[in-house]
């Protein structure tokens, strides 16, 4: 389980600290929502979902 925890941590670290400015969509908006915020909240949700799947069972 420790390996999975470390892998998830590294994934989250990359997702959370991606230089969004360098992406073409970084400054735009999607469905009326700023893409940077949309990306951050989606990445955050994904990480939480994976953490839930990893840790839900005792």
């Amino acid at each position: 389980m420790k390996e999975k925890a470390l892998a998830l941590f590294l994934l989250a670290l990359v997702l959370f600290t991606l230089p969004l400015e360098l992406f073409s969509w970084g400054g735009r908006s999607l469905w009326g929502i700023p893409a940077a915020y949309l990306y951050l909240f989606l990445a955050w949700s994904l990480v939480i979902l994976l953490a839930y799947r990893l840790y839900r069972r005792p």
Partner: protein
Amino acid sequence: MSALALFLFLLLYLASLFLVALWGEGRGRTLAQSGHAYAFSLAVYATAWTFFGSVGRAATTGATFLPIYLGPTLVLLLWPFLHGRILQLARSHRLTSWADFLFLRYGPGLLGPITALFLVVGLLPYLALQLKAIAQAFLFLSGGRAPLGDVALPTALLLALFAILFGTRHLDPSERHPGLVLAVAFESWVKLLVLLLVGGFVLWHLGSPFPRALQDPDLLPLLRPPEGLAGHLAWVSLVLLSGLAFLFLPRQFHVSVVENTDPGHLRPAAWLFPFYLLLINLPVLPLALWGRTLLPGGNPDLYVLALPLELGSPGVALLAFLGGVSAATAMVIVESLALSILISNHLLSPLLLRWKALGSLLLWRRLSILLVMLLSYLYFRLAGEAYALVAMGLISFVAVAQLAPAGLLGLFWKGATPQGALAGLLGGMALWTYTLFLPALARSGWLPQGFLEGPHPLLHPEGLLGLQGLDPITHGFLVSVGLNLALAVGVSLFTRKGPAPEGRTGELGELAALVGRVLGPEAEKAFREEAQTLSGPQAVALAESWLSAAVGPATARLLLLSATREAPAAPSPFEALLEEAARESREVRAYARALEEAKRELSEAYERLKALDQAKDEILAAVSHELKTPLTAVRALAEILEANPDLSEEERRRFTALMAKEAARLSRLVEEVLAYTRLQAGVPLARSPTDLKALAEEALALVEPLARERGITMESQLVGVQTLTDRDRVLQVLLNLLHNALRHARSRVRLEVAPGNHEVLFRIQDDGPGVPQEAKALVFEPFQSFSGGTGLGLFLAKRLVEGLGGRIWLESREGNGASFAFTLPLEVSHENPGGGR
């Protein structure tokens, strides 16, 4: 809104907190100690600075409010490495703070007190910020302007009372406080629900702010990701900084480690708490954008309150006030408690011990809570709107992050030394003061503005070494923690670890009495029970962990000096390892020796077997030969008799006598071989009362013809003895020995039978050449013949005597003839209880 009504509302809310805590200590204890309460109590991380400040930050700098919550998410993902390990240590050593850990890891010294002092200095402004948030929100809703501190003072006092009541009931702070935890978890619920409610309410009334904001050039920068290298560096730094703060903030250590009742609670918390943070951040940006749009001149930190008012809903504003208060109070309660434990255990208790006033430590801890609260209030009144207060949240985070190098290196790197940790901490603290704390004071006007320029362009407080473009927090964080880490690693690499602390041991009685004096009679009883089965040094370690939790590690060590003595130097783990290796090597050598011995014995046995096998072959040949000789003779004589019917009567009788003699020899040979096979087959004994004198006479009579034929005189000295034995076997032994004697004797064979104490002795002597020295060891071995016999006679005699419970031996001396003796036990038969004779 009326100030009085608002104040009563505030009091009502605080009263409900007391009730929740009381419930948590009573019937609600199970809920308070559940995994959900644990996850929600972690949300003490989200303070008024989150509740009001995040919206303010989002409204001024955009997305940079988010990293503050991404950091803790990252750290919680690593709980199997971090919290799991810390919890384990905290349980075994009853740690109450990171300062305790540093003491445990690096030994006694300045680290503990310095950490405690630094954390108090670094976190007081953060506490003041919370009080300010309550006062500010109160004034905003009640429409008042001044004095700002009116409502903050009674609130601070009430919160101090709460922390004292529910956090310091006993001296041992490592005890759980379910009431406190439940109250904190309850407040976490309140602030989350309220912020979602306010966000939902505003969105419901005003709709999405994004279409408008995306058109507004003023708001557009808020919606963009951080720009440039500096922006990205600031973002990454904030993620790291908040992660470290989440790990090292005293209040977080208190709720996540000290109040943890079950390590299994970390599992659900690892996703539940990040989920909580995500939810509480959802409404932040919409509120900030609507605030900027509708309230362009307002204080961004108060948008959460102002927007509902703007929309004509004072009820929702009141709820928002409640949310803000809940966020602030939870933080103030837990942080002040954690700081008071730090102050009392690392700063006050050594002094109290010196003044012989340790008994009043609990009172001093309660006073420290009050002191912390009053100092925070004072700071808030003095600093007011100054930069030194407003920017203090993140500056405090950077202060707390200074513990990270010593703490994390201590957890994961064996090479970290006390000197390294201290050098790192001092270096980090110095740079924190120079790059963050003093500039904050200068911006507030308490230091000359010239300070911000620095004495030299390369020593600019907010741009050391000419660094440009970074915001002060990122700059301060990177340089102070960077220097801290570099010093901690560098100095550790060039200093040696001190000698391991001397082990101590002590009597259970004395230790229990000491625990009782400090922690009370109940603790003494519990200690006696727990330490009953422990060895001296283990009991001392247990007492140290209990005392250390209550009075701080340094004082605990001093107290224990009186009740313990130096233990015989316990081998260090390394020495134990060497010892183990030496022991193993000794065992291996012994094993090798035993193997060698076994090999030698085996090879000897093999040689013996080989010799025996050869002897057996030889004897088989001999037996065949022995059998063949009389058989040939009998056959030849029979053929002569058959072929010569006219032989004289005398000749015929002589031949018949010869035939009879040869047949008798054949018969004896066959008897011996049969006896040998019977013995090998293990036929059981047939004991019966036997007259041994009569038996001896019978044997003598049986060998008489042979003796006469060889011209040997038979002599005997027989005493009448009766015993319980196998008659036939004794007779066989006697015959074998007598035949052997007759075979070697020159003129005389003597048989003696004499009773001893518990046995009867037989002796058969002859006057032959005796047994040569080299053959003595082999006379009783099977198939060892020195006189042309079968080689079975003596072997059979030995086996038979031993089977009858006796002994047999050779007495001869070379040249004086041979003397064989054997004994038989004198046993009384049940039929003849009168005795053997």
